[in-house]
């Protein structure tokens, strides 16, 4: 691991890279070049960056429709992702996937699902295969706080714990499912609930702090690599944009803008403007290239329509 300042800078760069990609998406959106729902991670980047710091290429992450951050942090190709959002043939899934279904198996980004909670047990199954095939590999599943309300979550925690499989349950708790708050939806505390299954569970409150997230994830992943047992991390985080789409919807009144502003006041990507300035040019160039790659892509056509069905 790169020590101290260098590490901070590198993680910052990763997080900023994600944010700038998503800001580019916001900028492009009115052009209708991206005709697909986009669930932005702006505000939540530190989670992906923190976990991925300690993941190896062969480790797997199972993600959701809100998947840009994890895809990029785990090493997915930015140009191919942009082309995928554009619905082009040079996207990694030839436009069949779009923003909601990012994947890059070559770097361990397993497919994102847009059905809430549906990848949790899938990740457990991948861990089962890792165990049986004696792979030195961790299976990480990222899901939102809302996903914990699905029955499948209960089933998957139980299965993973029973068989003591090498997986990490990573809950990105942004306090919202679409527009509903935790209090409207949950009678339990996520971390406490997970512990009932005999799963060691850590809760990170400062989800804006990528180094802190990285530290904790580093420890936990090391433990999983050591004993092959499943663990849970809950990270509190904050989504700055509307649930889906490029806008802000503070005016809708379902949450307080002040709370988000308080979070932003701690978010290095908002506060460390000097570093943003320093890193931005290179990142902007990379992003522009990705956009150019996407724009140059051919449209998929009738020859693609019925391939890969079976």
């Amino acid at each position, binding site marked *: 691991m790169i020590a101290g300042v260098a590490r901070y800078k590198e993680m910052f760069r990763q997080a900023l890279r994600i944010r700038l990609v998503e800001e580019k998406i916001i900028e492009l*959106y009115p052009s*209708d070049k991206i*005709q*697909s*729902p*986009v669930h932005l991670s702006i505000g939540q980047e530190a989670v992906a960056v923190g976990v991925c710091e300690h993941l190896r290429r062969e480790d797997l992450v199972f993600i959701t429709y809100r998947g840009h951050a994890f895809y990029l942090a785990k090493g997915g190709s930015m140009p191919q992702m942009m082309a995928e959002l554009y*619905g*082009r043939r040079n*996207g990694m899934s*030839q*436009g*069949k*996937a*779009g*923003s*909601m*279904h990012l994947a890059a198996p070559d770097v361990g980004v397993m497919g994102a*699902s*847009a*059905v*809430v*909670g549906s990848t949790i047990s899938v990740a457990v199954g991948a861990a089962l295969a890792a165990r049986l095939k004696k792979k030195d590999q961790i299976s990480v599943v990222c899901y939102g706080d*809302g*996903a914990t*309300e*699905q*029955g499948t979550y209960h089933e998957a925690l139980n299965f993973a714990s029973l068989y003591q499989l090498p997986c990490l349950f990573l809950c990105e708790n942004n306090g919202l*499912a*679409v*527009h*509903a708050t935790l209090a*409207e*939806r*949950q009678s339990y505390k996520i971390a406490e609930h997970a512990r009932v299954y005999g799963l060691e569970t850590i809760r990170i409150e400062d989800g804006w702090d990528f180094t802190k997230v990285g530290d904790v994830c580093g420890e936990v992943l090391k433990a999983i690599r050591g004993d092959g047992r499943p663990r849970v991390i809950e990270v509190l985080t904050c989504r700055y944009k*509307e649930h*889906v*789409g*490029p*806008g802000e919807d503070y005016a*809708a*009144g*379902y949450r307080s803008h002040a709370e988000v502003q308080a979070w932003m006041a701690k978010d290095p990507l908002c506060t460390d403007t000097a570093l943003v300035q320093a890193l931005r040019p290179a990142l902007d160039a990379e992003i522009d290239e990705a956009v150019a790659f996407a724009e140059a892509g051919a*449209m*998929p*056509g*009738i020859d*693609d*329509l*019925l391939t890969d*069905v079976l």
Partner: protein
Amino acid sequence: MNISPTNLSPISSEIMPARMSYREALAAAMREALTRHDHTVIIGQGATDFKGIFGTITGLHREFPGRVIETPLSEDAATGVCIGAALNGLYPINTHIRADFGLLAINQLVNMAAKQKYMFGGLFSVPMMVRLVIGRSWGQGAQHSQSLQSLFAHIPGLVVLMPSTPESIVRSYAHAVAHHAGPVLVLEHRLMYELVFDTAMHPPVTNPFGSHIQRVGKDVTIVATSIMVLEALRASANLARYGIDCEIIDLHSISHPDREMIMTSVAKTGKLLVADTSWLAYGVAAEVCRIVAESDPGVLKAPVVTLGMAPAPCPTAKALEDLYYPNLRDLMSAIVRLVRGADDPAIEMPSEHSMSDFYKKFRGPF
């Protein structure tokens, strides 16, 4: 059971004005249900939020305190809750913003709701409604675009409807709440929500749970569902100028299609085209073919033509999605070939390639 025509009183213009969008009709139906029937409740994810299930129930939770109920992200339990509430005196309306999520509730719908009455020899009934919205366009992709009517219509005990007009919504939802003591599933098409209808232009609905003739014609019978009814109407209007006269049956009742209406029409026209919103295999296309094949296939003067989604999951890219769903041109060509026996170069085909370009108001992000 109550799936046969009842004596229908006229709909007040307050509930159904001369011009009205599909969404407005849904909103009117929901408000009516809560206003006229004390025991009606609405249960769903996002039921109390500011978007109000695409604007169909916005604000009702304030107007009817305690009767519009948010649920956690727990489709299975929410459906079970509705069944239990129905067993104990309520009329629950359960909403899903995508029909795809109905798969998480299917155990409750098929193994429980559909069977409660029969399995106990009539001791129970489960009056409830499930609203399933079919997603389409703006990159809904494979998991937000399914049109799962045939899965439910295969199961005895369920009534499955697909309204295609405001009147059909207003009539059938009111009938369900007031007169049918069993589970009713309605599949609403998201692409139609903002479409404004001239309500008088559609023939009046006589059987709320039945099929409707939307256009009388002599050359070909088009049996269509949901948004494909509107496409069939558009195609027919275009083709009428060339002397092709289509009869259009709005199937509407997917679980209890009007066999006689279909057979009478096909006996007259000799030609049948089925246009559905889902896959052809084991879908509406298949079921309508069964009706004809079992009744009298001899009336067919040509093979049946079927249109639906391509046999693949739905791709996200617009370029592919436009190929995935049949468009107006596909439909018109199919009709022309069926009626004339071949393409007819004299008939001008629309240039439009994508249905969503026509139903323009549908634009992301949601």
